[in-house]
């Protein structure tokens, strides 16, 4: 017999006890709620701090006293000059250089060739085909309005991201300052960015471009930092031994060696830009997003499906192309000059052909309104039939959910005393990560209570809670199904990847189609959006289990069910929790976007702040959402990390 020495207990006993004490206190507050003084149920009016006024005062000071307006004007003028060029080239806005619009045939051919160069025939077909679809369906102008902004915003974001990423890499202090800012920035909902931009820039394409630039910088900063950190020390040493100066080392060794990470950053910038540009329709950005918004508001399902397909196709093309670029490895070229430059030559040939076609027949230059194809009518008809068929089910589901799940839950969340929620959060924090985590939880939750938006926030929490719960119920079995074997999990992950590239706005089309405009539609949209990360992380968690462990369980005679219950699921849980965390983040973003269908939560208030251009209120609401996200993020990741470490060390 081996003598076993017990490992030190993973949690100190007092940590557990303190957590329990907090939770009990919270419970007591809940039980005795009817007897509680009003000041414990909701914070008294006197404690509510006028955060919004402070922010407004700060902004007014920055704008009027510091002359920030001049700076933003200068920057926005620069962006506008670039926008004019792309607008002229892509859809013929009459601005310098007055040469556009480039015929769609040329752009489609260019996209096809770029696709071929990056990823072969299939990507060429996808890229070229997408642009042909856009032209043939008569959406060219809207798509080009959208693209003209992306084409300008992406390079700006990439350059800013590179500069700030390099700064953060060079100076610890800069990193320490940037890190929390990035954390908050990446959990602020889209609308929170729009309000200050509206105040400083106004509405329209220029504002759309600028909000897109600001929104898409954070991932670039992170990826630049990651890339620079990840360069192998030997490559840097070999650079130094080659006698590089600091600048040479940076530009010729470090940055090129970090190429893959930087290009993945570019990919993320592009995808974020697309998502934002579509949403920027709320601040008067023309293009696909605006068209979709109008069509959705008019409940024109067929036409909005057409636009939706275009946005989805664009998202897939942009994602695949930029990812292909990131993973593309250099290859040596041999052969004569003509052979080595064949792609360039073919492209030039195709461009020439496109111009000739456009000159011969105007159809290849611009597809007129009359010539455009449309599938709206058959889609509308089909949707009508479908709705007819399933409406008993959806109606019942809607009734059931609203009466028996949503309203009771919402009321329950609103019924909870603020103090009880705060105590419970502190208790959970203490249980997960001791005093520090308890303080972190309070630091995120207390400002929400103090801001006076507690009720709205609780509605958001309830929506996210319901959605993530449903997403788990749907996503985990799907993940189990997907993880059965290697080939299938690859297919599932590809589908998840593709879904994740879609701008969140798109998810509203099918749910409005099925459920109409109400609470259930909001929940449905959020659930669809939030299920994707759950499926993905379930699969990754299950596939990531070391095969020896599974084999040893099988040799112990575990049946497939036992294997799943006792071995696979427990080991996959930390990964699954990371998925749930991402799911919560996605839900928060989606809930806020879904506000325009009609909700009563923070998102709704944010829409109001946007239409009344109230920066203070908008930012307070944005921070409230961000803090909820960060709170969940802190708790779940801390727990998943601790659990993962405990599993690995055993």
């Amino acid at each position, binding site marked *: 017999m081996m003598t076993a020495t017990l490992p030190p207990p993973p949690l100190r006993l007092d940590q557990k006890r303190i957590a329990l004490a907090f939770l009990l206190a919270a419970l007591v507050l809940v039980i005795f709620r009817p007897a509680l003084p009003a000041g414990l149920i909701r914070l008294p009016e006197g404690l509510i701090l006028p955060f919004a006024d402070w922010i407004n005062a700060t902004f007014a000071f920055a704008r009027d006293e510091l002359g920030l307006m001049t700076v933003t004007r200068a920057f926005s003028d620069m962006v506008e000059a670039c926008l004019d060029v792309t607008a002229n080239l892509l859809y013929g806005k009459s601005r310098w250089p007055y040469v556009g619009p480039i015929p769609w045939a040329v752009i489609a051919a260019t996209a096809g060739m770029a696709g071929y160069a990056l990823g072969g025939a299939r990507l060429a077909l996808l890229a070229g085909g997408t642009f042909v679809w856009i032209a043939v369906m008569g959406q060219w102008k809207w798509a080009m309005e959208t693209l003209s902004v992306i084409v300008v915003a992406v390079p700006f974001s990439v350059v800013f991201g590179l500069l700030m990423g390099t700064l953060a890499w060079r100076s610890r202090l800069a990193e320490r300052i940037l890190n929390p800012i990035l954390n908050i920035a990446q959990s602020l909902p889209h609308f929170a960015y729009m309000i200050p931009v509206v105040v400083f820039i106004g509405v329209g394409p220029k504002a759309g471009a600028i909000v897109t630039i600001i929104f898409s910088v954070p991932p670039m900063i992170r990826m630049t930092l990651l890339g620079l950190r990840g360069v192998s020390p030997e490559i840097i040493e070999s650079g130094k031994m080659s006698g590089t100066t600091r600048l040479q080392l940076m530009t010729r060794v470090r940055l090129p060696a970090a190429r893959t990470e930087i290009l993945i950053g570019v990919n993320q910038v592009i995808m974020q830009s697309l998502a934002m540009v579509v949403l920027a329709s709320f601040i008067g950005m023309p293009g696909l997003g605006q068209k979709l918004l109008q069509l959705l508001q008019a409940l024109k399902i067929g036409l909005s499906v057409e636009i939706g397909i275009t946005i989805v196709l664009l998202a897939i093309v942009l994602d695949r192309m930029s990812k292909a670029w990131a993973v593309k*490895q250099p290859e040596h070229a041999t052969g004569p000059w003509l052979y080595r430059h064949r792609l360039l030559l073919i492209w030039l040939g195709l461009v020439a052909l496109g111009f000739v076609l456009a000159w011969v027949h105007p159809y290849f230059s611009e597809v007129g309104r009359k010539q455009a194809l449309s599938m709206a009518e058959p889609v509308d008809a089909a949707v009508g039939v479908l709705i007819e068929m399933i409406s008993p089910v959806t109606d019942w589901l809607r009734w059931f959910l609203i009466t028996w799940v949503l309203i009771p839950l919402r009321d329950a969340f609103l019924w909870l005393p603020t103090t009880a929620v705060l105590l419970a959060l502190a208790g959970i924090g203490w249980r997960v990560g001791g005093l520090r985590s308890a303080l972190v939880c309070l630091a995120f939750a207390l400002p929400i209570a103090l801001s006076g938006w507690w009720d709205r926030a609780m509605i958001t929490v309830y929506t996210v809670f319901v959605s993530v719960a449903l997403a788990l119920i749907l996503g985990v079995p799907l993940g189990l199904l997907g993880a059965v074997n290697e080939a299938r999990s690859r297919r599932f992950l590809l589908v998840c990847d593709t879904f994740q590239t879609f701008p969140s706005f798109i998810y509203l089309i099918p749910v409005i189609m099925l459920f109409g405009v109400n609470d259930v539609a909001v929940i449905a949209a959020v659930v669809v959006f939030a299920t994707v990360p759950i499926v993905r992380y379930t699969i990754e968690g299950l596939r990531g289990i070391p095969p020896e462990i599974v084999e040893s369980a099988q040799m112990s005679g575990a049946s497939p069910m036992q294997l799943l219950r006792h071995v696979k699921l427990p080991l996959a849980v930390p990964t699954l929790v990371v998925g749930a965390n991402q799911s919560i983040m996605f839900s928060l973003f989606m809930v806020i976007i879904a506000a325009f269908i009609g909700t009563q939560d923070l998102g709704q208030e944010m829409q109001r702040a946007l239409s009344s251009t109230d920066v203070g209120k908008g930012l307070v609401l944005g921070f409230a959402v961000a803090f909820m996200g960060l709170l969940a993020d802190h708790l779940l990741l801390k727990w998943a990390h601790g659990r993962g470490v405990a599993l690995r060390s055993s």
Partner: protein
Amino acid sequence: MTASEVVISCRNVWKVFGDYPDRLRLTPDTTMDELRATSHIAAVRNVSLDIRRGEMLVVMGLSGSGKSTLVRCLARLLDITSGTVEVEGRDIGKLTEPQLIELRRKKMGMVFQSFGLLPHRTALENVAFPLEMRGQDRASRIARAREVLELVGLKGREGYFPRELSGGQQQRVGIARSLAVEPDIWFLDEPFSALDPLIRREMQDEFLRLKGMLAKTIVFITHDFDEALRLADRIAIMKDGAVEQIDTPDRIVMAPATPYVAKFTESIDRARVIHAGALALPVDGRPVEGDPLPAGETLHALARRIVGDSRVLIPLSTQGRISGLLDRKAALDLLLGPAT
């Protein structure tokens, strides 16, 4: 080799990692435990050594013994905590950045364990990189890079990217790059460790060929004792950051300075290392009979002749002159183990 000029000279070099290494007071007697108590770690501990022009010094030790750190101190890729490193009489710790860059551009070349090639440049562009850094014009640096690539046997592979080359070929590119500027001092940090044994052998032969063609001062790092014995003029054996012994391969094997060194040499086939000359006794008027054996060969290479010989004392010759006498019994003991 004696009395030739010293190229690199280290005096009491320390390299300590930790929070505040500069505040430590380091003396030759400072122990690891004292440092550890202040949560510092000494990667290089009070090392003093001289490397002479044209000499090849192999620094040997297990992983973590500080050999790679030491060579990085010699190239000032790391700033040392205390002591001095002089290269051609100049204290490199006192060089300004431009002077240091100048030194590396003109005098030093280095080869890395995992090659350290720039992934986005072709073999040719990698080799031309140091020349590019010092501002040489394109035509001449390309010509020079082609020349060096041919020297290491990579003609025809100029346009390949590192990932398209095998490990051995990548290291040939690394070697070519380090030679492109015609450095006087050549650092090789475990250049063949990442290669599989067959390729390693081939690269060692290649290296010996290059070494014969180019007169360079070489510091070669390895954890492979056989490799060290095969290549070295002198070997420095390191343990826990300190040099245990620095000597010729014969002396290391025959007269290990510390138990640690002795343990290292235990499993070595000594006859393959020790040269006949290392066992030579002075002639001192004793009779010299018959044909001499070459003193520069290892006992293993002479084994057949020593076994077949009947003389008690076999004369040895160095460059045609009798340089000493080999005690046949001692040689046989080394070859076959002591008689029982």
